[in-house]
């Protein structure tokens, strides 16, 4: 029996050293050396040097002058980036239907002039609860409201939106999308 335990203990120890300490530290060293910004959370820093968010993590927006992002199911408040979570509501769950309908209502009240059907991603909770993006359709849906709230020319706003549109990566991967936080920051800049 001992001739099993000895190699088992020692191999576990040495392989722990190799895969649990050396390997992650090598990756950390590489990351901090070559990709320090990304490895530390892709932070957005304002002029005062204060971190105001991450390009990868969404924030909650409810004011008319901002574009709104995906619904977030994190608790206790939306976009809690220290406790990611989806809603996990099943497709037939009455709670899901009610919640989505409430969100649709809220949007329709906010944009009374808008008769387009609400794009699905704008009223459903993202998987992480931290999704930084919405679809182009979801931005289009909100343009009138934001332009009005900011007294901004709609065409100007369209230009700003186009400038912030991310296409499919390498023309193939993923979906076209817009980063809500970055777009809103750019809006604040433009109308300052």
């Amino acid at each position, binding site marked *: 029996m001992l*001739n*099993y335990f*000895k*190699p*088992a203990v020692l*191999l*576990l120890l*040495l*392989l*722990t050293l*190799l895969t649990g300490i050396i*390997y992650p530290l090598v*990756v950390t060293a590489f*990351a901090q050396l070559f*990709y320090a910004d*990304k*490895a*530390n*959370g*892709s*932070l957005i820093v304002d002029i005062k040097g*204060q*971190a105001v968010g991450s390009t*990868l*993590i969404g*924030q909650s*927006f409810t*004011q008319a002058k901002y574009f709104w992002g995906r619904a977030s199911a994190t608790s206790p*408040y939306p*976009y*809690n980036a*220290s406790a*990611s*979570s989806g809603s*996990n*509501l*099943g*497709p*037939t769950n009455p709670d*899901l*239907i009610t919640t989505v*309908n409430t969100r*649709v209502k809220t949007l329709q009240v906010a944009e009374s002039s808008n008769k*387009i*059907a609400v794009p*699905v*991603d704008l009223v*459903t*909770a*993202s*998987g*992480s609860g*931290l*999704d930084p993006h919405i679809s182009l*359709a979801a931005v289009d849906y909100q343009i009138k409201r934001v332009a009005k709230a900011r007294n901004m020319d709609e065409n100007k706003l369209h230009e700003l939106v186009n400038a912030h549109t991310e296409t499919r990566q390498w023309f193939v*991967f*993923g*979906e076209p999308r817009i980063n809500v936080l970055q777009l*809103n920051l750019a809006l*604040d800049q433009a109308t300052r």
Partner: protein
Amino acid sequence: MTTQNFLQIVLYLVVLLALVKPLGTYMARIYQDEPAGLNRWLAGFEKLLYRWCSVDVKQDMRWTQYALAVLVFNLLGLLVVYALQRCQAVLPLNPQNLPAINPDSAFNTAVSFATNTNWQGYSGETTMSYFTQMLGLSVQNFLSAATGMAVLVALTRSFIRRNSNGIGNFWVDMTRSTLYILLPLSLLLAVLLVGQGVVQTTNPYQNVTLIEAVSYDQPKLDANGQAVMDVTGKPATETIETKQQTLALGPAAAQIAIKQLGTNGGGFFNVNSAHPFENPTPLSNFLEMLAILLIPASLCYSFGVMVGDTRQGWVILAAMTLIFTALVFVAVSAEQSGNPLLKVDQIASESQAGGNMEGKETRFGIVNSALWAVATTAASNGSVNAMHDSFTPIGGLVPMFLMQLGEVIYGGVGSGLYGMIVFAIVAVFLAGLMIGRTPEYLGKKIEAFEMKMAAIIILVPPLMVLGGTALALMLEVGKVGVLNNGAHGFSEVLYAFSSAGNNNGSAFAGLSANTPFYNFLLGLIMLFSRYWLMIPVLAIAGSLASKKIVPVGLGTLPTHTPLFTVLLMITVLMVGALTFVPALALGPIIEHIQISQQSQVLPCGGQALPDCQAKSDLHTIHTQVQP
């Protein structure tokens, strides 16, 4: 199914299959100890490792010895992960001062990572210190994967050996898998992921100032932490406003690379690869998704090389790929068709992915979420990039069914292929019965002992899955954790046991499984279904190695032909369907019927809203807004 969806699926399959031969060849050379670059450059280090650890490289283990080495090594690993979790409060690299994990959850997690399941009852960023993640979870990600690969290599070896007692040396097989295959591939993937934005730091969580403050209600607590009641006797709430967002960070990239490559699947963060820090871009998603199936698929080719006929490997890979591809299209179509109960615009266009977006990320859309779900459950990976619980009934049925097939459609690293080889043995046995000859596979006679072991391997997971589901549904402790009611609630429980009983690890995460009942029951099931498959597989290996090799004769069923691919597929699907269709009928199939009926009776998703018309006019309106 849009053109873009189709294109991304095809691209995924093409890249995956293109990598099978090069990686498969490399791995075969590693296991056969032929020059493959790395194993010559690091040969001195490998030798030194064996000397330090008093490993007798020359020892050719019998199957019982091999099994004992596997068990001792895995048990020790399990104990270390348990101890680390229980002591993490006093250990270093715990910047968030996270407390020790309670015994039942720590047991569940330790078992889960040692058995390559990576079922997660806990939530990463609020539970595990960086130290536990690195030295406990990451390490088992490597070692549990290497264990699976070692057992596969032992089984493969038994086909080539004749009249032999031994099936190889576990320490050597396991060390080589780690050193030459898992570690270099992980290093490469981790570096690529960091370049895409996956975090990798030992700094504490980062606070940022929000653009718009968030206010929320929270139960009021008194000085003793008890809820304060208001005048009506209900718990009082207070409104809190926060201007801060705390970004959970950590040494994630290194762990994510191996959790994808080693078919582990245990996320660094709670929502796994749906988290933007764990899977930030469509490209990182593609790489992580590729990593899920890369080694399991390539091992088929290695198997072919090692048994001296690569066609044998291709035949198995073809069976896996055909079933996989068919199910990808089912799942993607189901998700793309959306949720008929929601009265919103779900039609795919150039400006949105459309479909059932609840629980999915915008950057991945429908196709990458559904494709991932199929890949992660075809392999016993279990990582997710979308919440499976919120999938449409059919979209959720596909992952569940793939797990129930026994994790043999690619399956876990090593474990998937040894499972599939067992199915191949059953297939030649069935064919043997039909033509009235003694069945042979790769020159080895398949006799009563092999068939008994194969029967254990095929029967243990269904017993665990169906028995566990039945038990949980009979007990109050099993039912309280269910989030969604009705048929979907049944699916949540069935999914949990399918996942644990086949060492997958993904979940219908609405089920609150971090309770003593689920932690213990699922923990025991994971242990049982890992080792009561592994031990019989090693027994088969021992028995085959001791046999002579019979030459191919007229009565030999050729196992390198498309006909055998079909036979193998039928065997896998028949066993899976006969065992699980009744259970599936009670869950996702009923739910599918319900959802279709509800949407027909009530065109407005069951809601009497005045602007009901919008849905039927949806298509026309939408095309009008296109510029």
